[in-house]
């Protein structure tokens, strides 16, 4: 009681001093136990008094609501009729200027609008009907116990045992165990199909590409070889391996083998390995992002940055395509290149590591 009184006093002082100046309550003094006057159980306050709607009280308002609902349904009917008319009357290829939309097909527009209005006003009418005329008295339904009577439960169990006894299940274990085995094994085909349906194991498909020693670098989509002398400084060539167009699995291979060819001033290439694997400043890097495999095609020829459009991973070509920004974790793999005796660029070997995003075995 004294505690209570002092805390009230403190509260009064604090209120006078203003909420900002209230000193913090120490942890061991914060909880004050008092009588409080709180009952052990709160009484059910019940539902708030029901408020009658206008349409419940006056026949005039009810008739007004009726008319409103009927009007909405009528609008829907009219829109449906207009849809049918527009379906036959508006030619499909007619285009016209529509404000805020631009050139648009009048047929598409009218069919879509009339159908939308038709369906929308069925819904609006139904909701308005429910809100104005249908009963809205609050009702409380008490929950029933779900457990059956003990006698019923016992009868059900007795029935099962009696059935088992009549089928001689207990007396003929051979049937019991073979049936169990048959039913249990029947799950195997189901599970087998599901697991088998996940497809063949990838093998080394994730680690290898079409690239191998001597394959020419071909311009996509022309599939013509590239002369080293044609790759001027600042150029970027989108490259596919020679023979891709004859490959059976062209899309799979295209998605793995895409290469970006750039020429920089050799002194701009800061990593000796990148210079060695290139040819006089011409370097070839995998175009497949090491994050989730988008094509890294955005080459800025002044900064020598390669940007992936999906998640903004940025690779620095001057630093052997190491990641300088974004979620990618590994540098883009470089393809070693040289020229053949006709001056065309060819691969010196396959990629020395897997291209594209990380996978289970690679980590």
């Amino acid at each position, binding site marked *: 009681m004294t505690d209570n009184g002092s805390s009230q006093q403190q509260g009064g002082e604090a209120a006078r001093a203003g909420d900002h100046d209230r000193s913090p309550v120490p942890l061991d003094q914060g909880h004050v136990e008092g009588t409080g006057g709180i009952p052990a159980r709160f009484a059910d306050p019940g539902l708030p008094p029901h408020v009658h709607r206008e349409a419940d009280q006056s026949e005039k308002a009810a008739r007004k609501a009726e008319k409103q609902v009927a009007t909405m349904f009528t609008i829907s009917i009219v829109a449906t009729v207009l849809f049918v008319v527009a379906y036959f009357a508006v030619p499909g290829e007619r285009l016209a200027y529509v404000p805020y939309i631009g050139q648009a097909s009048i047929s*598409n527009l009218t069919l879509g609008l009339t159908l939308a209005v038709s369906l929308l006003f069925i819904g609006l009418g139904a*909701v308005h009907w429910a809100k104005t005329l249908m009963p809205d008295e609050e009702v409380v339904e008490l929950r029933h116990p779900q457990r059956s009577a003990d006698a019923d439960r016992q009868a059900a169990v007795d029935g099962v045992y009696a059935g088992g006894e009549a089928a001689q299940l207990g007396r003929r274990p051979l049937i019991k165990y073979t049936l169990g085995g048959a039913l249990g094994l029947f799950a195997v085909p189901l599970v087998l199909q599901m697991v088998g349906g996940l497809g063949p194991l990838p093998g080394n498909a994730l680690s290898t590409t079409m690239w191998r020693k001597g394959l020419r670098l071909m311009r996509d*989509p022309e599939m013509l070889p590239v002369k080293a002398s044609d790759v001027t400084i600042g*150029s*970027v060539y*989108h490259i596919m391996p020679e023979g891709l167009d004859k490959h059976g699995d062209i899309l799979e291979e295209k998605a793995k083998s895409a290469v970006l060819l750039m020429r920089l001033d050799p002194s701009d290439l800061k990593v000796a390995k990148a210079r060695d694997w290139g040819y006089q400043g011409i370097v070839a890097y995998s175009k497949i992002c090491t994050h989730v495999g988008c094509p890294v095609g955005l080459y800025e020829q002044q900064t020598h940055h390669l940007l992936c*459009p999906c998640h903004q991973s*940025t690779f620095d070509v001057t630093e052997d395509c190491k990641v300088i920004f974004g979620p990618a974790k590994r540098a883009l793999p470089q393809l070693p290149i040289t020229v053949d005796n006709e001056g065309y660029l060819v691969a010196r070997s396959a990629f020395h590591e897997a291209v594209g995003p990380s996978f289970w075995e690679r980590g």
Partner: protein
Amino acid sequence: MLKDRTVNALAARRRHPAAIVILLLLGLVVTGGIYAFAAPKPAQAAVATADDVAAGKKLFLANCSTCHGLNGQGGPAGPSLAGVGAASVDFQVGTGRMPLSNPGVQAMRKPNKFNDEQTKQLAAYVASLSPGPAIPEAKYTSGEGNIAKGGELFRVNCAMCHNYAGSGGALTRGKYAPSLHGVTGTHIYEAMLTGPQSMPVFNDANITPENKRDIIAFLHNIDQNENVGGLNLGNFGPVSEGLLAWTFGIGVLIALSVWLGKKAA
């Protein structure tokens, strides 16, 4: 004797004293004419005159030399113009990117400071400093060409930066690839040829002049295409579409749910 005189007179009439001279002149004109048609033309010799170069030099000294140097050799504020050619000048000045209004990550497109004639004069002057790519011929920039082929080339070489519909897109650190809508064929061609700013160079070995023409035809076709699908939201793909769906579409759904859940009275 009489017969001889007649023959002589006829012969004299047949071979007029001026015939040799006329024949010589005719031969020279025909040869020169054929040469003019058949010979490989040096860049802008056909259009640029010495007067253009002189006028261009005046314009250059007054407007460009502060950054690019009195002889276009470059300086701390601007790059050297050696080898950029008339095509580069026509693109940068013709689209208003040069003269630069203020330093920034990227020169932006803005209203031209120079008219077409002045632009040509500037181009002629810069081209006279050192050889470089010329302004392309009209037959490659008119917008005629194989639209399907141009579309394929565009999707391989251009779409990753300039967007599948040529609406442009973001690059690193505030730079961006501009929209290609409403850009003239000549400027598109020159941009591919010279690689302005962040854009790489697509020389004639990479994308042949005929293929450049096809790409221009494709872009012009996109510009003229009627949009059957209705509101395109700038053709920016999922970003603008998602923004509209999340703000407008879901907003309407929330408003309807609130209305449905509200007690009538």
